[in-house]
């Protein structure tokens, strides 16, 4: 019974696991105060390179995945260097340009990428289990970052660059690190996508990809590490649960983005966590007052 359900929903579960990865790649740059949407392009690089290596050069898929991850990291690092000069919307536009360049090159260089038709017949070597473990490991790394020096620096820079610098944190260094981590996650999950879905084509890593990744993070929450995952889970499950919604999926996404951003700017999950925290604080206050401690 359970296994039937699992098989029926397997494609959906794979989709959720992959997209959670994409969402976390987007999340980590935002967390460090970099307004980059480059992940679509970095994911494309990971997907294409690993697929090409295995299909055309006969490289073992595991090595191809490593190469895709490394390529994502490297390109992200290279990007971070010039982007450090830019801020806010200018960063967003520059990274959008990067995504467009990658996309148009993928369409153009038919000999390597298969052009607009993409690459087909990629061996499906990545199973749901691999994806699940990959997501767990990614979550562990992001949790680790949050609990240690990197996370503190990212948070400081996101909230106030000038203060962070005055405390000795090099904005440029930490933002490059965030970029590289995000590139690694993007490249890795790009390779996962290639080896999970048989086929890749340029348009899959375009504007829609970018919007989806941003939506997961905004909807779920930009602070806690669970926000992006919850965002991906809800937004992927929603159209499946209510069939009429599926037809108007993009309309629903659009309205969600407006309503959540305007009314719950922290995202659904983070708002909930904060609500719990505030309740606990209020309880502690009451307890303190009851004890007669009015300091």
């Amino acid at each position: 019974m359970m296994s039937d359900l699992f098989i029926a929903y397997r494609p959906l579960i794979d989709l959720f696991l992959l997209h959670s990865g994409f969402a976390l790649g987007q999340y980590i740059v935002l967390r460090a105060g970099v307004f980059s949407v480059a992940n679509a392009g970095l994911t494309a690089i990971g997907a294409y390179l690993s697929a090409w290596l295995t299909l055309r050069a006969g490289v073992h898929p595991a090595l191809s995945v490593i190469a895709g991850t490394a390529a994502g990291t490297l390109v992200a690092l290279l990007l971070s260097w010039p982007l450090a000069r830019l801020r806010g919307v200018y960063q967003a536009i520059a990274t959008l340009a990067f995504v467009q360049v990658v996309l148009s090159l993928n369409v153009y260089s038919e000999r390597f990428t298969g052009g607009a038709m993409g690459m087909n017949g990629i061996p499906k070597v990545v199973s749901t289990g691999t994806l699940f473990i990959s997501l767990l490991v990614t979550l562990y790394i992001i949790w680790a970052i949050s609990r240690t020096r990197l996370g503190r620096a990212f948070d400081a820079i996101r909230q106030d660059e000038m203060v962070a610098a005055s405390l000795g944190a090099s904005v440029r260094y930490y933002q490059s690190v965030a970029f590289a981590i995000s590139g690694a996650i993007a490249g890795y999950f790009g390779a996962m996508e290639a080896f999970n879905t048989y086929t890749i084509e340029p348009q899959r890593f375009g504007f829609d990809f970018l919007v989806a990744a941003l939506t997961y993070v905004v909807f779920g929450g930009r602070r806690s590490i669970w926000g992006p995952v919850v965002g991906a889970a809800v937004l992927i499950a929603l159209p499946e649960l209510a069939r009429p919604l599926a037809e108007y999926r993009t309309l629903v996404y659009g309205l969600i983005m407006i309503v959540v951003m305007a009314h719950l700017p922290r995202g659904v999950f983070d708002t909930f966590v904060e609500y719990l925290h505030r309740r606990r604080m209020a309880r502690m206050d009451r307890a303190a007052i009851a004890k007669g401690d009015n300091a």
Partner: protein
Amino acid sequence: MSTLVLDRVSKRFGGVIAADNVSMQVPSGRITGLIGPNGAGKTTIVNLITGMMELTAGAIKLDDRDLSTTSPHEVSRAGLARTFQNIRLFKEAPVIDNVMGGFHRHEKCSLVSSLFALPSARAETRQIREKAGALLEKFGMTRYASYPAGSLAYGHQRRVEMMRALASGPSVLLLDEPVAGMNDVEAGELGGIFRELANGGMAVLLIEHNMRFVTKLCEHVYVLDGGRLIAEGPPKQVTSDPAVIAAYLGA
């Protein structure tokens, strides 16, 4: 024992001269004052010292180290901490996190150990949390540890900012109008803390608009007007200087 030295520092914006040949000494163990009417160029001097702006001419040194062209985070790493004129806390983060941020320059764990939360990185986080807790204790702020910093009363926010600056264990502390908006009692309390820090060997630079506070606290005062130093010396002598009186009345 450290001394911050400004050696004939100038800053021009196009044709406008914001700082003109300013020379100052901020030695350890002393509270040095920098005063001047609004628009005298105090903020420019702060920005030049902290590396937020580039010098047009002159040099800034901390002991033997030249800070003239160093970027803000390197200035901080060299041992200079600051507070901001209009308090700049991480408003939504808990007080304890704000203070922990101040320890950044002493964090040593490697990138890899942080990425995987290796024991060394976790131990460091624990130590910093303990040190921050001790600092909160010292300032009597322990019960606010997990409140969002932005939700505190004004005076308490000033304290949090002060703790964050002190957390880095600086040799020079730059205070940009630290008692703005405070009453005399609160200001006096903070003044006591500054005094203690200076006695402990820190070099304290107090930038203030409030002449009374400066006269009470500082051993040595520089007066800035129109981007130039117009007087320096012990507060008594400076406040009776006709040029200073003219500058303040004229403003």
